[in-house]
């Protein structure tokens, strides 16, 4: 590999494809440098926003120009990958806005480190989204996960945060090891790590199958699907809420992006198995959430259920969904709606949670409609969207997932899935009931919420989420026409 090959590798198209990653990395470095000189500390916020917006703009332009598969087939920047990329940038931006002024005094000096870590995650996600090569995916996976391990335990003074961080780290590493060993077995069987080539050679023999199984296990871990989902409630509840928002939206989307690319590895007859796993995940997620009293932990369980719902799309494709891009459209729109809804919901929780853990229990939400009518209304909208009620993005997402199932002929899984989301509404409504229909306990009624400038970015982000959720529900053509 001499320099000429290197230059030849990085031809004009490759540069264009990789530009967003480069932009984000540059921004990251500038952010790091800003930490060195005291004078530049104030610039922290604007740098983060600028980097993310610029990165987002570049991804959007890739969406239009479609550079396609570059760098010797290892990374693609086609419309799908760019769309996912856009989603990752948005998820990170929302999470960052909600983390603004979220931390108490003892963590505030480390705010810069927090932003640096948070800014690296979109790079990892984009790599995962566009990866056409196992190595690229693995690198992306680690670039995403390692900062999240650190972010999860960011509030060192709280035992829960450290516990969440460590749990996430250990199990994450464990799963990453599974991924590695799986891909090594696949490599042993097929001799290549390029997805395209693996596809050409096909998955035959016990070695390859075992490899795919391990690989899928780690992906299912990341998506938090049935046997691998147990870590989610503890980690989501323990880590700081903006980080949870990022985890719930960003990581899931990235894992799904890759799963859709790697779906060819699954044998067709696995469709029923995947459908069963998906339905069991939905059931466990919804039923588990029903038993929760803490809203944040409940939203964690609901995240598991939504992961199950999106997995149904994979089952649909395996069962032979006639529509070519069916799975991609459904997953992309569903995750799009889910990103705005979940980020919004977690964001509002973060907003309410200013002073300690007390605010995320259902008990403390009682009578919120009187104290904070706008926040209550937005949270109700998010709950309805999570439940999939029309006039919200969630409904159309659910519609497209079920239609991919129905087109593939899996009628009964669709009906069971539909009925499971009735259970989901059982606990989403509980939040609405607490806010609107139950009187506030006197202790909560007394506390005055934190007003003032510091809450401005968070309310802005929540507002953006609410608008997007509504627009995706009422005027979906803006998004549907642009799906790849």
């Amino acid at each position: 590999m001499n320099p000429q090959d290197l230059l030849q590798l990085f031809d004009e198209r490759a540069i264009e494809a990789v530009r967003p990653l480069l932009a984000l990395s540059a921004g990251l470095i500038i952010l790091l440098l800003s930490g060195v000189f005291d004078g530049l500390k104030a610039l922290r916020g604007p740098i983060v926003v600028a980097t993310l917006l610029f990165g987002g703009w570049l991804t959007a332009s890739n969406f239009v120009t479609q550079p396609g598969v570059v760098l010797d087939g290892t990374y693609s920047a086609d419309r799908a990958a760019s769309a996912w990329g856009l989603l990752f940038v948005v998820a990170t931006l929302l999470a960052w806005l909600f983390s603004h002024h979220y931390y108490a005094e003892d963590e505030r000096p480390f705010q810069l480190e927090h932003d640096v870590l948070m800014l690296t995650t979109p790079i990892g996600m984009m790599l995962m989204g566009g990866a056409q090569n196992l190595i690229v995916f693995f690198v992306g996976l680690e670039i995403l996960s390692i900062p999240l391990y650190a972010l999860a335990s960011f509030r060192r003074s709280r035992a829960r945060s450290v516990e969440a961080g460590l749990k996430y780290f250990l199990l994450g590493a464990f799963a990453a090891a599974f991924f590695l060993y799986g891909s090594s077995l696949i490599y042993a069987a097929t001799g290549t790590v390029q997805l395209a080539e693996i596809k050409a050679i096909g998955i035959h023999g016990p070695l390859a199958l075992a490899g795919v199984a391990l690989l899928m296990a780690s992906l299912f871990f990341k998506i938090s699907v049935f046997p691998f989902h147990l870590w989610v409630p503890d980690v989501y509840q323990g880590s700081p809420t903006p980080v949870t928002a990022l985890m719930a939206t960003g990581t899931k989307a990235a894992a799904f992006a890759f799963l859709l690319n790697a779906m060819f590895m699954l044998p067709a007859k696995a469709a029923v198995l995947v459908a069963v796993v998906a339905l069991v995940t939905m059931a466990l997620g919804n039923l588990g959430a029903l038993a929760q009293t803490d809203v944040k932990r409940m939203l964690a369980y609901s995240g598991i259920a939504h992961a199950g719902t999106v997995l149904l799309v994979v089952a649909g494709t395996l069962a032979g969904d006639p529509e070519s891009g069916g799975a991609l459209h459904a997953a992309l729109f569903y995750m799009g709606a889910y990103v705005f809804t979940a980020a919004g919901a977690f964001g509002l929780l973060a907003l309410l949670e200013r002073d300690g853990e007390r605010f995320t229990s259902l008990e403390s939400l009682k009578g919120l409609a009187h104290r904070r009518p706008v926040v209550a209304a937005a949270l109700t909208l998010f709950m309805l969207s999570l439940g999939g009620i029309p006039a919200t993005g969630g409904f159309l997402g659910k519609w497209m997932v079920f239609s991919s199932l129905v087109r593939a002929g899996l009628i009964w899984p669709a009906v069971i899935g539909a009925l499971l989301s009735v259970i989901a509404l059982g606990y989403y409504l509980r939040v609405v009931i607490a806010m609107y229909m139950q009187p506030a306990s006197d202790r909560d009624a007394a506390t005055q919420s934190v007003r003032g400038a510091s809450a401005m970015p968070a309310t802005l982000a929540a507002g953006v989420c609410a608008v997007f959720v509504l627009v995706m529900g009422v005027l979906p053509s803006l998004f549907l026409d642009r799906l790849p």
Partner: protein
Amino acid sequence: MGGTWLLWFVPLLPLFGAAACGLIHFATLAARKHDANAKGPSGLAPVVACAAILGSLLLSIAAFKQLAGLPADARVIESAVWPWIHVGSLQLDISLVVDPLSAVMLMVVTGVGFLIHVYSAGYMKGDPGYAKFFAYLNLFVFSMLMLVLSSSLIGLFVGWEGVGLCSYLLIGFWYEKGWPAEAGQKAFVFNRVGDASFLIGSFILIKLFGTLDLSDINAAVAGVSADPEKAWWLTVGALCLFGGCTGKSAQIPLFTWLPDAMAGPTPVSALIHAATMVTAGVYLVVRMNPVFAFDPTVLTVIGTIGALTALVGGTSAIFQRDIKKVLAYSTVSQLGYMFLGLGSGAFAAAIFHLVTHAFFKGLLFLGAGSVIHGMHDEQDMHKMGGLRRHMPKTFVTFLAGAAALSGLPLLSGFFSKDEILAHTFAHGGFYFVLWGIGIVTAAVTAYYTWRMVALTFFGKERFDHHHVHPHESPALMWVPLAVLAVLSVFGGALGLPPVFHVVHVLEHWLEPVTAPGKALLAAHGTHELSHAMEWALLGLGAAIALGFAHFGFRTYVKGVERDESVQRNRPALADFLVGAWKIDAQYYAKIVYPSKLVAFVTAVIVDQFAIDGLVNGAGGLATATGNRLKLLVDGSLKSYALWIGAGAVLLALLWMFV
């Protein structure tokens, strides 16, 4: 007056009257809001009400005259048609028609109705709901006129349920006392049971003839005999319609509401439960005589039920202590006679008895009302006696009515009842049994009628003189009594038996209406009576009437010893008869209480426990499994990792081997 809207004014005048009285009532209520016992305009109500009925009466007389002028076969006056329900091919319209039958009914309803309105003006004076009473009374006459005049079954049904409603409102007029409201409700429910069967009958007629227009149906009946399946439906339809009649005219299964209906004011009993509403069933059968005459078994059923009702009604009246209860059971009995007449195909005779019954029963009720009025609302005959000296006018008119009711010779009751018995006898075969029952009931009727007269007007004055000072009723009340007395005595002229070689006025008059039914019956054999047999029957009837009347009068003229002795040594019999053969008690035991139990079972066991249990169970199951699943997430790192490892191995195995 044909085809014009004028005929509509016959029923509409009472409707406007009712509306006016309603407004007057609300005006009095408003006036009474400021000053508690203000009279307000309620005095105006009787005038408006009586004027409305009088207008209707005059129009009816005009219609009657115009009808009489028309040739025999074309005696029909039709009114403009009100298009009611038009759905696809089905046309259900309401239009009024005056033909000989409805003309007769018209005269009875408006005539007797007017007299009763005048009487009520006096009887109800001073009652807080004075105007409301006249509003209901007028509304009743409107409904009855709709029932009698309407040319289609659907219009008839409007009147049919309308009278049921008014009887509910009027029985429960003094609702503050509580039990009249229950009596009213009982009456309405019994009527509703009958109406349900009536509805099914109307559906069958639509199924067979596609229309509910009575004249079309009567004409089309002949064509049904060809198709056996249609014939079966027509029989079932006729029986269903008759089911409706039993509800309205208080026949065997559905008659127990009539005695309780005495809870209403007496003019109500006179008008509704003697003269008009209860005769609706008879009118319906005569109006649709071809439908009923088509299958002889239907007439047999009608006849049997009529006879049995007569027997039960008559025997139940014997030991009643309440004067109005005696008359109520007597009405049930006399209605049984009318249906017996219909059963034996004597449509004209049934109508004849209906008319005469309206006269003398109306008279008796009003007389009883005047007695009660005089005795300050005392209705128990054991606390009366010797009133003939205090109320001479009421006494004389009451006597005429009682004589007519008991069938003393030459009076209206005698001729109408015996004509029915003659026709039943002529029918022969099974009808002999019915004739026997009829004769026994005639005897019983005479007995209880003169028992009543004796206990009320003769014998020792058994009331406490300090509180009760019986006095004669005002002119407003005894004048109608006098008019009705005259009609009861000379009413017989309407239908003298053929033996007298004088034309039977009513039979001749109703010929065009009853002809189709008679023709169908003739197909199953005609029944003629020789003159000798007729004289024998007339003699027998007169003898029984006179004998038992004397027997009844003699035993009770001295006082109530006979009642007390029966009460003492034969209490079971007395109780059995007073309770109308315990039929009502059976209804409560067999139907009312079990239905309450079923209601309880459905509401608590089936609904709350079973179905709702399932629903709540599903919810509970979800939360329960949720709680159990929660334990799966036990917080320990090890178990999570175990699940991950096991999951990966599971996936691998499944893919390799499935």
